[in-house]
């Protein structure tokens, strides 16, 4: 397993300044005794696109739920560099309220914060415009395609201008053409908003194309085993997929993932 080189003093200070959240020795054991995570150490930096990559059962989603505050760690610490950060969450399914219009779905986070419809309208319409669905504000989710529903879900996550956008395999259920389009749009949005994204995926190619950094996890128990940096600034053009750098990064990531999957279960 490859550890990150020890940062020099200067770089450590810079890392401190850009850090948004750090997990230290985080473990999670469920009520039924299953250990989902053990000794997870990682950090998320401001403005980066970070992917969590690993085989199923490695606890990627649990890390995301911990960051979202939907579950609490059994051990270790999660240190945010700012108090009460605004969160956005995108699930694998669009998870829209079917009885509500697209507008009302995107309005929900602001509504829960006490913003009236008229008051929230500019922000909601802006979020919808960003995902290209301004014309569908009055449609019901049922009338939209799978890709469009996912866009609504992203608009809802962005409407509060979150400090961090958490995405749990958001495009896994979509066809490849739609997925590629949404990937490009997501990166464009991320750059436009200078957002921080933590993206859970099990696709090597998707993670290399999207990420500044990839954290690779191994299962039983879930832990961080490797990290790959992609030295190509975002956004990336479509022909990045054809570049030698892309191929090299995919090979490296793939090899790290392969090692993670064949790794002996950690003694604990």
């Amino acid at each position: 397993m490859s550890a990150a080189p020890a940062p020099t003093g200067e770089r450590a200070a810079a890392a401190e300044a850009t850090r948004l959240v750090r997990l230290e020795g985080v473990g999670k054991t469920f009520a039924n005794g299953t250990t989902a995570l053990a000794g997870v150490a990682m950090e998320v930096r401001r403005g980066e696109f970070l992917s969590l990559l690993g085989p199923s059962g490695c606890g990627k989603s649990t890390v995301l739920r911990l960051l979202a505050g939907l579950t609490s760690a059994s051990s270790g610490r999660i240190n945010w560099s700012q108090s009460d950060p605004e969160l956005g969450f995108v699930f694998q399914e669009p998870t829209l309220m079917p009885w509500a219009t697209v507008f009302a779905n995107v309005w929900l986070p602001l509504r829960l914060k006490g913003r009236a419809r008229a008051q929230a309208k500019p922000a909601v319409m802006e979020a919808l415009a960003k995902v290209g669905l301004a014309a569908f504000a009055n449609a019901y989710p049922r009338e939209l395609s799978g890709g469009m529903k996912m866009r609504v879900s992203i608009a809802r996550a962005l409407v509060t201008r979150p400090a961090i956008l958490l995405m749990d395999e958001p495009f896994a259920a979509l066809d490849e053409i739609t997925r590629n389009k949404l990937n490009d749009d997501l990166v464009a949005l991320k750059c436009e908003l200078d957002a921080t994204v933590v993206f859970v995926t099990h696709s090597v190619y998707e993670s290399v194309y999207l990420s500044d950094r990839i954290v690779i996890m191994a299962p039983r128990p879930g832990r961080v085993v490797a990290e790959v940096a992609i030295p190509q600034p975002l956004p990336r053009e479509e022909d990045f997929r054809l570049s030698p750098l892309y191929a090299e990064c995919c090979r490296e990531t793939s090899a790290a993932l392969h090692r993670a999957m064949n790794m002996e279960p950690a003694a604990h």
Partner: protein
Amino acid sequence: MNQVKLRRYLLPTLALVGALIAWEAVVRINHIEPVILPAPSLVLTTLFHDRIVLGRSLMVTLSITVEALVAATIGGTLLAMLFARFKVIEEAFFPFAVILQVTPIIAIAPLLLVYLDSGGAVLVCAFLVAFFPILANTALGLSSVDHNLLDLFQMYRASRGRQLLWLRVPSALPYFLGGLRIGGGLALIGAIVAEIAAGSAGSGSGLAFRIIESGYRLNIPRMFAALVLISLTGIFIYLALSAVSYLLLHRWHDSARSRES
């Protein structure tokens, strides 16, 4: 499309008219006495002649049914919310609701008549049968919320009240409306069953009482007329509740939409 619609309405109408004509013909050709089997035309004229006494009975039955349904809706919904909020209450009391449901109402009715006057007993019977489907469906609906949406509400720190009002209630709505439609039909059955159980001892004057009374008097055409009114009441309740369901769901729920073809 139009042809399909036409067929959907025309076919059952023609079948009904055909059956009525056959019935009329059988009675006339065989000279069957009205006391054995009245012709549809006689039932219709009886309906007209006895419109005052039957109309009054219809109003009695209808008001009991509606009162019972309203009470069952309020009671069932509130109890379902209590069940959803406090699992302990559900575990403690759900078996009672099941016992009440599986015990045939016709067997409970005479017992109720011991403790209540016949009007009260009829109302309670109608309430009891309508109550369970509304409770069970609403409780199921309230707990069938998308877990991710619950997570989302939790992440945005929604209060329990808002979670109930903005998430659980709309999620439960299709289930509740299904229960309401079943409950509506059952409320009428409960009202009729209880009145029949009360029989001549009852001071009631609903449609079921008219049927029993007409039976004793061998006024068979009036029996049929009362029966027709009960059927029409049931159909009316079903259509009214279906309309409510359509109005509330048609814009978003799959059940109220036709498939694309």
